[in-house]
């Protein structure tokens, strides 16, 4: 019976069936075996073509989003999705084709074609990306690997006439053709409020060897450890780090660099407002590290236990990090020294809400420390929403 249940879950995971029912009965009929069982899976397929229409209202912008999906295009759970977003400020669209290997759903191929625009007021920058990408996912033992090639035409521009000259110098077009590889090991029992397990994700990206203008090697990693303590509280430690190494003597582009700060990384600081800046515009840095120590407890007095209250946690946190540009001529000792000086850190407490199994909302009271001149802080109450938190 357990295997029937597992098979049912695997069929549902394909995303092509609305319902899967399992009927187990003693086998009957002419070719019935003695003590045999007939297992019948009754499936209801999803409609061949589904559409969706949403309107979104955000920061001074409204947009209309149209989606089209073919969940089972060629009969083997291939998915074709098209999304089009028409907004007051920007328009973006994306076409995506997903093909799992029949019998092995974890091995799959995704092809993407997209145009995405983004506005980054902390750098007074706006970016339009038009690109294609091909991604291959496969498990290997306990690890999950992703190999991806991406070709992107990036167009950068100033968001306002008052943008600093350093950002103005980055305006223009560039072409990035990059190969990247990600390996991840995830033994946590949940993505949002894990109470045990660890996550390690290492990502590397090499651009420039398959064409294009941008040429660099980028590494970054993410580590998270969770452990349950007394009374349903969980201690969680996380560490992020990364390095961007421009190849061929070129300067790195503002769109490739790392950014730090904000409600999803070092709390208590403004969004991406740590590190090298020019006239108030944050330029990002080529190397960074960030660490966090959290203690999650259920809400005091446990209101709504067993139901709504389980979506909330209180947490106490200590975050630290640094973002800077390295002088690649010096040795590794000098690099470590540079990353260790001028550390920004913060501590505080707040409430966290889980949304589904992917996202989190946080409301924190933060006290930033170690603030360097040029950083923008957000001390006091800070609100954050997102998928990936330090």
């Amino acid at each position: 019976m357990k295997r029937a249940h597992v098979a049912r879950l695997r069929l549902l995971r394909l995303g092509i069936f609305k319902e899967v029912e399992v009927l187990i009965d003693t086998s009957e009929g002419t070719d019935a075996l003695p003590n045999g069982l007939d297992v019948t899976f009754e499936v209801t397929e999803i409609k061949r073509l589904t559409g969706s229409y949403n309107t979104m209202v955000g920061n001074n912008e409204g947009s209309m989003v149209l989606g089209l999906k073919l969940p089972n295009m060629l009969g083997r759970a291939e998915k074709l999705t098209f999304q089009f977003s028409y907004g007051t400020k920007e328009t973006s669209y994306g076409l995506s084709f997903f093909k799992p290997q029949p019998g092995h759903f974890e091995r799959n191929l995704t092809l993407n074609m997209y145009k995405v625009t983004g506005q980054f007021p902390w750098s007074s920058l706006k970016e339009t990306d038009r690109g294609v990408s091909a991604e291959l996912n496969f498990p290997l033992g306990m690890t999950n690997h992703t190999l991806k090639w991406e070709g992107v035409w990036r167009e950068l521009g100033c968001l306002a006439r008052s943008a600093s000259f350093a950002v103005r110098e980055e305006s223009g077009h560039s072409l990035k053709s990059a190969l990247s590889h990600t390996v991840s090991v995830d033994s946590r029992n949940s993505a949002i409020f894990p109470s045990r397990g660890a996550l390690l994700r290492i990502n590397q990206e090499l651009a420039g060897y398959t064409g294009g203008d941008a040429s660099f090697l980028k590494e970054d990693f993410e580590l998270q450890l969770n452990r349950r303590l007394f009374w349903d509280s969980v201690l969680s430690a996380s560490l992020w780090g990364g390095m961007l190494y421009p190849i061929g003597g070129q300067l790195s582009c503002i769109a490739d660099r790392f950014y730090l700060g904000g409600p999803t990384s070092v709390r208590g600081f403004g969004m991406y407002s740590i590190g090298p800046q020019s006239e108030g515009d944050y330029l990002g840095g080529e190397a960074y590290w960030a660490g966090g120590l959290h203690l999650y407890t259920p809400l005091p007095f446990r209101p709504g236990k067993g139901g709504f209250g389980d979506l909330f946690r209180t947490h106490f946190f200590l975050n630290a990090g640094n973002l800077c540009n390295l002088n690649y001529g010096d040795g590794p000792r000098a690099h470590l020294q540079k990353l260790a000086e001028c550390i920004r850190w913060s501590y505080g407490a707040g409430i966290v809400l889980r949304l589904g199994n992917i996202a989190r909302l946080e409301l924190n009271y933060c006290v930033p420390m170690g603030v360097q001149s040029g950083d923008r802080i957000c001390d006091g109450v800070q609100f954050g929403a997102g998928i990936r938190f330090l």
Partner: protein
Amino acid sequence: MSLAAEAFMSQMAAAEPWPENATLYQPLKEDQILLSDCASSLAVQAYLRMCGLPVQVVCRVNAEYMSPSGKIPFIHVGNQVVSELGPIVQFTKAKGHSLSDGLDDVQRAEMKAYMELVNNMLLTAELYIQWCDDATAAEISRPRYSSPYSWPLNKILAYQKQWEVRRKMNAIGWGGKTLEQVYEDVSQCCQALSQRLGTQPYFFNKQPTELDALVFGHLFTILTTRLTSTELAERIKSYSNLLSFCRRIEQTYFEDKRIL
């Protein structure tokens, strides 16, 4: 810009003197810059030299996208970024440097009219020849414009620019013209300029003005740039006073450097 913003900007501009590190940005001289941009850039450089204001010329691949108005050239002075000759003249005037102070109102109106003539005729003709003439576009303009980028971005940007210029030409009514007609228009424009110049050293007698800088920028660039045919340069060479005008300005203001 709104009136309030302009007034504010001239207040800010007037506050500081011209710094030593003023810079002028243009596309790469050897491989990338096209005739029309080179002419505009030379006009601004000539104007600043006539005012006696030092400026450094820096070549950047993305100069066109760095410019706040999308046009070449632009100058970075102190904290401010100003592009195109018209606004640059206003900007230097706010700082107290001007070449046309000695003119009376009638002359000033005449100067503006001739500057409009050069912009509407010569500059448009240069753009037409670069982008609407298929031979020039294929041999010179597209390869040069897209030289800093890699495939396929170079093709995309070059064709995008070509379509943009052709749409603009259609909008102003030049889409239907032939190359011969464009050459004729250039000749007529040069004739008008030649007649105004006469035997004087500069357009308004003894002192150069921004009109002299603009005319010099365009004529000198046309004379010294290699195109698919020498027809355009020949048409200008037929006016000897314009030739000696260009030579005179080159010798007076550009003796310390080779321009092109």
